[in-house]
């Protein structure tokens, strides 16, 4: 059932020109722009890679999940799916899965582009993997929650802005050595810290970074349960 729902969702995503552009072309173009125009010398690659991953998670996963779920709810497709045999968890997993796969694939492609453009390989690939999984999870959970607060697919462009920017800013600040610990309160900062450490940066904040990421996943999931709606009528 998850596979059938996922295939349908992927078709819907790719057949909608706006959604497909935002989810696929935009982050790829931005990521390539970062890789080829920014200065990668002296640790600059950490910033570039962080930006690339934040755009993949932010646009491809977070904004797309929010927009897709809101559009499907508006179409009453979510309500229809609940009249079928799939449980709520299966329905959500089916819809989220292709988006997550797309986001992760994109992140890997962009990393490959950076390496091709001269970035070093990560010293701690395990930490990079952790950042990828954590980033996908935060973005998914936050997307489900935000869609609950978003009335129409058009409004998603506005409602996704605060979390998106908080994540990008959090990610960027935390790649600059060891900043004030309060930075870890921002959603993307745990990820930025992990990415920096993966490329040989300071490692003393890894524990806190994982804690921050886990806390954001937990908070977004809890808020999703509270705010997510299946039916526009409420």
């Amino acid at each position, binding site marked *: *059932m998850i596979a059938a729902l996922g295939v349908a969702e992927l078709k819907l995503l790719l*057949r909608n020109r706006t959604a497909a552009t935002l989810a696929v072309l935009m982050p790829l173009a931005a990521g390539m722009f970062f890789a080829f125009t920014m200065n990668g010398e002296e640790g600059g690659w950490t910033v570039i890679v962080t930006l690339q991953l934040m755009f993949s998670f932010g646009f491809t996963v977070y904004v797309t999940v929010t927009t897709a779920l809101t559009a499907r709810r508006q179409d009453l497709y979510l309500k*229809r799916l609940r009249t079928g045999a799939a449980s709520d968890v299966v*329905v959500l997993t089916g819809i989220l899965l292709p988006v997550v796969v797309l986001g992760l694939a994109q992140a890997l492609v962009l990393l490959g582009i950076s390496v091709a453009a001269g970035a070093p390989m990560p010293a701690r690939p395990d930490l990079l993997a952790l950042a990828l999984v954590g980033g996908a999870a935060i973005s998914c959970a936050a997307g489900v929650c935000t869609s609950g607060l978003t009335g129409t697919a058009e409004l998603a462009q506005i409602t996704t802005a605060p979390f998106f920017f908080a994540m990008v800013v959090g990610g960027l600040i935390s790649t600059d050595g060891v900043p004030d610990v309060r930075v870890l309160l921002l959603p993307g900062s745990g990820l930025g810290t992990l990415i920096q450490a993966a490329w040989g940066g300071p490692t003393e904040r890894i524990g806190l970074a994982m804690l921050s990421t886990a806390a954001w996943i937990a908070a977004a999931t809890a808020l999703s349960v509270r705010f997510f709606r299946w039916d526009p009528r409420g």
Partner: protein
Amino acid sequence: MVTMRKPVIEVAGLRCRYGDFEAVRGVDFEVLEGELFALLGTNGAGKTTTMETLEGLRAPFAGTVRVMGVDPWRERAALRARTGIMLQDSGFPADLTAREMVRLWGVTSGRRATEDVLERLDLAHRRDVRIKQLSGGERRRLDLALAVLGRPEVLFLDEPTTGLDPESRQRTWEVVRGLLGDGTTIVLTTHYLEEAESLAHRLAIMHEGVVAVSGALVDVLAAQPARISFDLPGRLDVTALPMLAGDVVHRPSGRVEVRTAELQDDLAVLLGWARREGLRLGRIRANHASLEDVFHSARTGKEVVAA
């Protein structure tokens, strides 16, 4: 009417709320195996809310609902493969094709997909067209095709023919009659009273969240007075009429209306009198009550209960 059939759906004391607004305020009815039960009422009467509770899409605020002996809200999964649901709004993603939707639904409904449902509803030639390009009637037929996929035991149809042209409506009725012939139990809501009159075995008319009228179609219709109407020749007054069982009203238009429980007797008396007097009554009509009459009196608050 004595029947040995067992109830497939049981609703007792059902109440539903949207926040502070109570949309359904204490509803009881049963739907028997293999029958078509029509749930009628004006917009906002609580039909769809009641349907959604039966379908397991919303929890009752109070009361109990059982579908094939199971609580549809708590045990949704147990019922899904055995029930077909056609919501008031189809809920189609615009960018899938009809064929893709049938395949997807074959998996997610828990019932097997066969593309011949598209043929049965005259959609085979449109199978590779995106849903957003289908006409309203085609979408509604696709919706019905999905609801009847894999022959569910119980079928919920929420306004299945709203917005359909007469031909599509006929086709829908054929499919519904075919399913009844196969023993499917059907709950239907509709705004078309002639649709309910031609399909339903039993019905309930809801008004402002309660059931105003319920019972077997024949009993509900029999409980309403029949109507005789005619034009009286100009010089006569209603006082000249013979004794009738029913109530006589003389309309300002000059038309006389008799509302009677004894249609045959009153009509015989009236025609006999006219013949003896050598009168010609203009444009005589005699009708049994239609569902429209029952519906109207339910809305105006006159309680009619047929056992």
